[in-house]
């Protein structure tokens, strides 16, 4: 009989993760712990950061192999998360999340003041700044495009584009995108104060006109037709965003709208978060690249903010002082955080200033803006 208790303990040790774990994996587990801390204690976009962090934890425990893909015809199933990851790989989850976001979004303020769209365009500036610098740093065009899109300040869009162009960068880009979105109240105010004068910040804006139900119903249809005609590659994102919004505004499919913004988006968010996190294996994540992505991401966010603010100043000037440039920074998207930052800064300059509704216009325009930017990059750099 060749079994003995000591032998078996040794075997168990050898079969266990303890004998395989590397310092890199330990470091990754530590990073996932930090992300969990940020999500729970600091409230950094916990709906995505918490699943991402946990996926990162799971994937760096050796031998668990949750992301091993099924070998077709082998008869042996793959890892649990490899199946759930298919929705990321095929670009399904981000589109479904966009449907839910569409069902939650009121485009009223944008329709009431359509010039908000300019700010939503200008605040994509950082995407291209980061793209150009990333290219200069020898990232491939696909990688550079994916890094740039962090400046879109829109999680699902960033994940969608990166999954298609450079999926090895997925966890770094997703984490950077969601972290910086959570950090908007720290990133934007200094730039806002730097680039605007006190007088500009004090500007009170006229109340927005009421938007009729008809306009709200036509909006998603018109946006879909125009955007997809102009840039067919945005169809999955803009199409689903606007389908969700049509559910909302039509008023006749309450139950579909409710499911799109609750059960469905939540299920998809869990699957997307955990599996995106699970792509962050130590060997691909612990590289200089990742640090560069984090740096470039901050740059992208900052330049997007700058783009929005400068265009805001232009509109202030063109409108003869009727537009408060502070609403420009909300054009980065990061709904509704960036709009709230505009509100707070506006009130600091002038306590009777209520910019929230005015900032919601550029804010939701920024979602469309970054989806369009992603569509362009996909059209140019996709296979």
């Amino acid at each position, binding site marked *: 009989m060749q079994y003995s208790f000591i032998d078996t303990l040794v075997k168990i040790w050898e079969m266990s993760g303890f004998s395989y774990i590397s310092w890199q994996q330990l470091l990754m587990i530590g990073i996932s712990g930090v992300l969990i801390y940020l999500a729970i204690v600091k409230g950094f976009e916990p709906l995505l950061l918490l699943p991402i962090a946990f996926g990162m934890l799971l994937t760096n425990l050796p031998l668990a192999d949750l992301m091993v893909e099924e070998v077709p015809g082998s008869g042996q199933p793959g890892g649990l998360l490899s199946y759930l990851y298919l929705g990321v790989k095929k670009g399904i989850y981000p589109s479904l999340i966009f449907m839910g976001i569409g069902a939650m*979004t009121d485009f009223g303020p944008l329709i009431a003041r359509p010039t908000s*769209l300019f700010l939503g365009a200008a605040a994509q500036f950082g995407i291209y700044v980061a*793209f150009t610098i990333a290219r200069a740093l020898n990232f491939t065009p696909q990688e550079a495009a994916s890094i740039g899109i962090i400046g879109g300040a829109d999680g699902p869009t960033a994940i969608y584009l990166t999954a298609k162009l450079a999926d090895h960068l997925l966890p770094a880009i997703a984490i950077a995108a969601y972290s910086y979105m959570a950090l908007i109240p720290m990133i934007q105010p200094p730039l806002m104060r730097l680039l605007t004068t006190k007088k500009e910040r004090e500007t009170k804006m006229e109340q927005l006109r009421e938007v009729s139900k008809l306009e709200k119903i036509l909006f998603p249809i018109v946006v879909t037709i*125009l955007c997809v005609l102009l840039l067919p590659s945005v169809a999955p994102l803009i199409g689903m965003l606007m389908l969700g919004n049509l559910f909302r505004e039509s008023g006749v499919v309450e139950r579909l709208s409710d499911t799109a913004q609750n059960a469905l988006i939540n299920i998809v968010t869990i699957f997307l978060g955990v599996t995106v996190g699970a792509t962050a294996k130590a060997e691909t994540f612990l590289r200089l690249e990742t640090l560069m992505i984090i740096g470039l991401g901050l740059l992208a966010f900052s330049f997007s903010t700058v783009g929005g603010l400068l265009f805001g100043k232009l509109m202030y000037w063109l409108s003869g002082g009727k537009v408060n440039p502070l609403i420009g920074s909300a054009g980065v998207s990061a709904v509704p955080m960036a709009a709230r930052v505009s509100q707070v800064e506006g009130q600091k300059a002038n306590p009777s200033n209520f910019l929230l509704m005015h900032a919601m216009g550029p804010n939701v325009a920024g979602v*469309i803006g970054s989806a369009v930017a992603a569509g362009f990059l996909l059209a140019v750099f996709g296979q």
Partner: protein
Amino acid sequence: MTISESLLISVFGLAIVFVVLIALCLFIMLQSRIIGAFRLKKKEAPQKKTEQSASVEKKDAAISAGQLKLFDVDEKTAAIIMAIVSHVSKTPLSELQFKSIKALD
């Protein structure tokens, strides 16, 4: 692809975002103009009503958390209401923010 080409792509990329969003802007303006022209006649009569309901509508907007204000309702009734809402919505009272409770008489 050289750096200057990257730069050009960037310029064109930003231009396209502007082109698409400007097109959208123009279209929405046009549409609002048309719809506005149609609605002009109907608008005069029910103006008052819409003003009144404006404050109500704001509450419904977007992802607002359950918030109420307190007018013309004794505190006991308000407390009962808050307890019910808390119970029914399975939210601990400490997490609910009531902005106003108003009697509708």
